[in-house]
């Protein structure tokens, strides 16, 4: 792969400390992580190992206490909340365990939402929405609401939403956790297809079998990678 190119994600000595009930919890303790363009990396670790914190920091939902994080050539740590929102919007596509679709909106509207926040014109939005839904194979379900779709379909909509903005990385947090094994396998197959199409994917899981299917496996334990 393009290991010689600049990494999409470069984390050095990332530390994040939470204070829970007066006690300091070092969720991440000097974590280092490098992910290159086009890689399909899984991050695996038991619960409480700091996976979620790592994902939040990668996804720019949270800012590390110390260390250096360079995403797609941009140093994140010094960014304000508004800039972080922009980066989330343009560089990162989230896929959550619990789908996190807006239940009052149709699948199309859900996929369109990040594009609205980008401020794109209507025509362009519709085009990108259509393409994204096509890629996950749900072109005919655009007008359905999430509650009218199966779990697997909902996750596909979520993936389409993540893809719509053409992000630098696709960040998936236990994307198969709420699905039965067959649909889970379908979703993983979709991820593989996306990987082959050139997307950079970071998949967070606690399931060894899923982790083994990926190109590279990063283990996290007690806040260390």
């Amino acid at each position: 792969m393009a290991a010689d190119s600049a990494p999409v994600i470069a984390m050095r000595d990332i530390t994040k400390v939470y204070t829970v009930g007066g006690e300091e919890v070092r969720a991440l303790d000097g974590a280092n992580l490098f992910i290159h363009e086009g890689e399909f990396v899984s991050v695996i670790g038991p619960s409480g190992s700091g996976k979620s914190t790592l994902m939040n920091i990668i996804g720019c939902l949270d800012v590390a206490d110390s260390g250096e994080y360079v995403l797609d050539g941009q140093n994140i740590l010094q960014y304000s909340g508004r800039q972080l929102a922009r980066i989330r919007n343009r560089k990162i596509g989230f896929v959550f365990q619990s789908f996190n679709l807006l239940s009052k909106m149709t699948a199309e509207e859900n996929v369109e939402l990040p594009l609205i926040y980008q401020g794109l014109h209507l025509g362009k939005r519709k085009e990108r929405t259509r393409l994204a839904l096509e890629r996950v194979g749900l072109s005919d379900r655009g007008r359905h609401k999430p509650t009218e779709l199966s779990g697997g379909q909902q996750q596909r909509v979520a993936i389409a939403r993540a893809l719509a903005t053409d992000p630098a990385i696709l960040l998936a947090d236990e994307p198969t956790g709420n699905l039965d094994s067959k649909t889970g396998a379908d979703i993983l197959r979709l991820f593989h297809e996306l990987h082959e199409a050139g997307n950079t994917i970071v998949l967070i899981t606690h399931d060894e079998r899923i982790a083994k299917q990926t190109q590279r496996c990063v283990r996290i334990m007690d806040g260390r990678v």
Partner: protein
Amino acid sequence: MVFQSLKMALNAIAASKMRSFLTMLGIIIGVTALVVMVSLVSGATGAVTSEISSLGNDMITVSIRADKGSPLRLEDLDAIKALDAVDQAAPSGSMNATAKYGYSDAMVSVYGTTAAYYDIQGLELAQGRFIKTTDVNNGSYIAVLSDEAATELFNRTDIIGETFTIAGRAFRVVGVLAKDDSLMSGMMSSLSVYVPFTVESRMAGQPYITSISISSANAQDMDATEDAINRFFMKRFEQDEDAFSLMNMSSITDALGTVTDTLTLLLGGIAAISLLVGGVGIMNIMLVSVTERTKEIGIRKAIGAGRGSIMMQFLIEALLLSLFGCVFGLLFSWGILEIVTLIAGGISFAMSPSTIALAVGFSSAIGLIFGLYPANKAAKKHPIEALRYDG
């Protein structure tokens, strides 16, 4: 972006119609109270003001209180009439007396005046003629009756040439005035009989003029007319300003205007308080809505909504709630005012554009002010915590 926020806010409002309506209710009631009260006051003011101006805004009444040894006579009126600012002048002596015709009698107001009075007061004849200058000069016992006085005494109005008595003296009827439907005539005694000034002054034992009605040559500049008349009488009565007083219809209108302005302000203020309470209702519901939709806010933030976008979304929602409330309130007020107009008859109560603008402006301000806190609260939510929220 604004259009999208508008669409999102509309969807959110439509998603819980009953709650949205109840939230709006405060604003609806507030706007209705504001618009109805202000419109009622301004409608009534308009009606009264137009009545007064129909009485003649170009008229000034002078009352003589002390004659300073040189009382005013009919000849003096020519000097007043000669003023540039004055069109006509007529004396108006008045007394109350019993009028009799056959077996019927009535207490009437007898006005002693001259021919000019007809034009100055803007009277209208139904039949016959008004007092003429020769009647005044000859002291003829002739009378012009108001429609009400004729009906009261004769039970009919075609009475030209009939004879009746006032305080025991016989008068011949030469004219009957047209029926006056205006509000002011209802307020004032209208059993009026007009006779030549010379006749009335003899009967009343008051040979001098104590009250004069003057019409201005220029109705647009009543102040100048008033000044001229004031100067004339100051000179006449040795600079004693207490000897006479001027009364102008426009000064009554002005006084009335001040009273109704105060009334409008007072009632509008009370209504504004209920609008304020409506605003608190909006804030309350918006806070609940923000908490309920924590997860939604988290998702929106995760996929890249900035603080501004979230803030805008909730602010527009609050603004729309109060504006919808305002629209419903305006419709409601319109209905109420139509009904009141129907009941009141004669007086029309309508919403003026400025009242509507006031209501819309006030509601938007309230929506924005009370939406600010919930919207800011939504915008400040941390994306991770918001995503974790189970509601």
